[in-house]
């Protein structure tokens, strides 16, 4: 059993890639999560507010259009400020501009405070398995 099955979902920044977002919502819902889908062009503040309001267990940030490196910076800090510093932060999509090795990208986003970072074309199922683990772990240590 999961302690918390609420996930805030959205595409950050000025990014309008909507297809993956719609699919993520569907697949997360099918997997038993309650999804608060903010859609596209979501600001960091909107993510934080939604997560606080819903007391969500995780935030799933998508960034497809390349500006992820700029848009995603500082979200973890904002989580701390809002008192949800330990929320699970996942990020995925085409996170940086151009083709770069994923190791490099993963390092960059982990340093920004994201717990899990996914390369382009990740199938949702993979991350959902991690989410179940992460949220289950939590209940175990409670």
């Amino acid at each position: 059993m999961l302690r918390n099955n609420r996930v805030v979902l959205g595409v950050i920044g000025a990014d309008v890639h909507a297809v993956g977002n719609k699919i993520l919502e569907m697949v997360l819902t099918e997997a038993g999560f309650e999804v608060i889908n903010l859609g596209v062009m979501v600001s960091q503040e909107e993510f934080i507010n939604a997560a606080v309001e819903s007391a969500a267990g995780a935030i799933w940030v998508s960034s497809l259009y390349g500006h992820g490196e700029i848009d995603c910076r500082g979200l973890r800090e904002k989580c701390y400020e809002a008192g949800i510093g330990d929320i699970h932060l996942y990020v995925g999509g085409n996170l940086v501009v151009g083709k770069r090795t994923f190791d490099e990208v993963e390092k960059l986003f982990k340093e920004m405070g994201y717990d899990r970072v996914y390369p382009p074309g990740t199938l949702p199922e993979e991350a959902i398995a991690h989410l179940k683990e992460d949220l289950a772990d939590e209940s175990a240590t409670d």
Partner: protein
Amino acid sequence: MEQKLQNRRWDDSLFVAERGAVLTAWPTGVGVDLADAFAFHRKIPESKRAHGKLSSGYEQGRIYLQPRAGVALLSEHLVLLAKLELEGLADFLPTTIDSYTRQNRYEEAQKGIEESKLAGRSLLNGFPAVNYGVANCRKIVEAMSVPVQVRHGTPDARLLAEITLAAGFGDFEGGGISYNIPYARDIPLEVSLNHWQYVDRLCGVYAENEIIVNREMFGPLTGTLVPPCVSHAVGIIEALLAAEQGVKSITIGYWQGGNLIQDTAALRTLARLGRRYLDEAGFADVLLTTVFHQWMGGFPQNESRAMGVIAWGAASAALGGANKVIVKTPHEALGVPSAEANIAGLLCTRQVMSMLEGQPLPPMEALQEEEAVIEREVDEIITGVRELGEGDLARGVVRSFEAGVLDIPFAPSRWTRGDIIPVRDQKGAIRILRFGGLPLSEESRNFHHIRIKQRGESEKREPSFRMVIDDIYAIGKGRLVGKPR
């Protein structure tokens, strides 16, 4: 505040009044001077003018190739475009604009320029033309020897148009529908249509001064299973709206669906229908050309597979016929392509296209049927829009999106209902499973129904949203039609 939306050529007074606000939205706006712009354009050699090149290519039956490309720093952008011209043999060059500029977030774009300078690589997904201003942008036009087009995705592109046109660009992509619904979340159509009337009127002003700027509509929309009748209707309506404001050279587009017969039928009907609607509306003097986009949906990650998708797009364009092809790259699934990846896409496409020169798909029944279907559907949709507009096409568009008479699947915008559900048939042609408010006749609906049913039977499953998702993932997984898992 906003002037009431109507499909009528803007009064000069209105245009001039609005211009003031547009040009002061960001400091570089003051660099725009129309008289100077006209003078600059007049000195541009014929071979670098989009309209002239399109029109001679149209007559000779040539198919031009164009990549997408743009980076944050001007110096790098110049190097990039020069490579695409010289090594990639591009016939038209692009200047793809970054996503902050597209949302008029010039401050963030500025930050992107600064950070890119520091990082020594582009942190923006395109070239922030507004921030660079007229004088800098002219360096692009001057440095290249083929026409350069502004490609973006900007609901409010008034300032971008002012600056780039003044900088000598002669080709500008976008439209009030196609650069809103797939590219924005909250912007009402009244607003974007109005802003694009401004852009079109600006081109009209250029035309009245003998400078013909080509306007290209963004055919692919969301690039995700859009049925041809929908994108055709949108493109043709945008063309009519542009012509009304005095635009004299228009390109409408379509993207590779993947089924050869449907794609060929779509390309041929697009040219034919577009011409017919323009002529009927009294715009026989407007040059109408077509552009074909290689596969716009999710690409396979593997570069060799991506090259296969690209080459099949090239073949479809050659067999179907178009005036220009927008070329993808083997990096598509991964990130903004390097110059090398872009060149790879261009040369692969070039090779296939010239091997297929003179080999248009011959007449056949299957093609005739598909063409007739698309033509009827487009007529039905545009009739529906006109009815709702009660005599005004622009108003018709707004009301149609409200009613679902026009509707674009998988769009981020809340100004489209998103009630249509498209899905592929067994041969991979894009059909419609749920019609939402689309004003299609019984006959038209039946056609889709039968085709989708065939697939359902052969896959032994009820056509559903699951099937649609399988179709969305399919090309990435190496197929056109999504297999049941």
